[in-house]
């Protein structure tokens, strides 16, 4: 059977959510939702899983912390121990209070940048990438539901969209 792409455009985020519940209830997969701001509560309806970016940030943070610890242990304690201001230089453990600030900064640096870079790569955001929103108004005030349905379901789906308040429906 032929597949068609349908754009259901809503003016209101609440109606969009109601529409999505209805469509999903009919056993139709909502392929994508484009909105001008985060619509809270849409993710579980259309089956978007919770992001794991925070876990990545934690791992990047641990990496940053380890790198800083290793760096200061190597430079100050092992490679060239220097007696400065009477602070002990022969042992990392005794000198560690002075190393806390940089260990912390390095943790934050790696966690923040690592996370941002992962986000840009996973969502494929970078200069020169072409935007994928089918209607330019979805960055302004419209909420667009992208559906891929069987041609036979078209009238049923359109009715459901209209019933929940869709202001426009486009078939592409």
């Amino acid at each position, binding site marked *: 059977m032929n597949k068609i792409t349908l754009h259901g455009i809503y003016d209101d985020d*609440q109606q969009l959510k109601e529409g999505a519940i209805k469509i999903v209830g009919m056993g139709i997969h909502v392929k*994508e*939702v*484009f*909105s*001008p*701001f*985060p*619509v*809270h*509560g849409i993710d579980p309806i*259309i089956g*978007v899983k*919770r*992001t794991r*970016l*925070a876990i990545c*940030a934690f791992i990047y*943070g641990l990496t940053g912390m380890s790198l800083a610890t290793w*760096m*200061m242990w190597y*430079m*100050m304690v092992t*490679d*060239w121990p*220097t007696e*400065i*201001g009477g*602070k002990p230089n022969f042992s990392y453990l005794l*000198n560690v209070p*002075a190393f806390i*600030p*940089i260990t*912390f*900064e*390095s943790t*934050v*640096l790696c*966690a*923040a940048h690592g*996370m*941002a870079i992962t*986000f840009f790569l*996973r*969502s*494929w*955001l*970078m*200069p*020169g*990438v*072409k*935007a*994928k*929103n089918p209607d330019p*108004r*979805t*960055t*302004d*005030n419209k909420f667009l539901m992208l559906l891929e349905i069987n041609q036979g379901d078209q009238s049923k789906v359109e009715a459901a969209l209209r019933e929940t308040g869709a202001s426009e429906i486009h078939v592409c």
Partner: protein
Amino acid sequence: MHQESEIRKPLIVGNKSYKDITDDIIRPVQGKANKYWWIVFTLAAVTFTWGLVCLCYTIGTGIGVWGSNNGVDWAWDITNFVWWIGIGHAGTLISAVLLLFRQKWRMAINRSAEAMTIFAVMCAAIFVTMHTGRPWLDYWLFPLPNQFGSLWINFNSPLVWDVFAVSTYFSVSLVFWYTGLIPDFATIRDRMTKPLARKIYSLLSFGWSGRAKDWTRFEEVALVLAGLSTPLVFSVHSIVSTDFATAVLPGWHATIFPPYFVAGAVFSGFAMVQTLILIMRKVFSLESYIQVKHVEYMNIVIIITGTLVGVAYLTELFMSWYSGVEWEQYAFINRATGPYWWAYALMMTCNVVSPQLFWFKKIRTSLVFTFILSIVVNIGMWFERFVIIVPTLCRTYLPSTWNMYHPTFVDIGIFVGTIGMFFTFFLLFARFFPVIAQSELKSILKLSGSEYKNKPGHE
């Protein structure tokens, strides 16, 4: 869904719709700059250029052209550095700490406050890179393998902590700010008609499309970056304060410095946000989004941090007396009654007395008073750093090194130049970037917009 109490005033007034928000915020970007913008921009750019001339003169001749001398070897350079970096702190506080506390009113001001942070840290960076005397050797500050017998930098030194703290702070703030800007650049991109402008905003928007998954990630990134930036902002000024506190110099060697500096930074930063916001809301007609209520909230932060700073000043005085250490006592007597008594008096008046006026509701809700006091506070906070540095250094242990400090035209030129640079960048930002995080504002419209709020039974 979140509920907001009925008695809270709406954060967005004037019966705005989603489209109105877009229109109101994008208008300055789409329109042409008016006469006032050009006048102020020219003024700022000329001052900035003069600052650059003074910087070139300093690099070409050496920091002997400054007023710093044998006794007072840190003066305006470090004063300006600490002042600028302190100003930057309010931006991070508004965007990160208030995000964690779920304070929705921050959404109208966080974008411009973060921009302020970035420009302020850039100004601060000029002074730290220049005060080393040979800025072309500043890469020595980083732990790079070298041919000096593999002699590494000293990780025990707060000056090295500063390098790491300030560079982390700058780059993380920049990423935080830019990530937040991406959806708004996409909005501009989709509304621009001119092909070149479209192309530029398309590049800036990184191809943002607003898919559900992208928004989920976007919010997660904002939340985690806020969580990371919160301790970061406190650490940065604590580390800056250790530049002084770890020196064994009466007047500097105090454990109160980190919290005292952080409170002072937030204090001066909020004052600078007020100065900028009050002009911006008027010029761009953003009164529906930045209301008197927002200004009042910030004034409350100013009273609290101003009072904290006052308590810190008095604690310092008490501890110097209570310590029984003559050197310590002399340092404070010298500050209050020595050759720079006027700077101390100015600091006390501007920072401790003047914010107390905000206890009166009439004053803290008056925009004119707020504007004047915001400038007074920033003058006071500049003098606080001056008082910590110059009067201390001009009367140290050895009376033979006692001397006065007089700024030269180069000192003044560079300082005024950074103010010019700050305003040049801020004006460009206000002209070409969305000054309010409009995608965030839209998400609270139903919660706190006047039209929705007054409807009975709204969700």
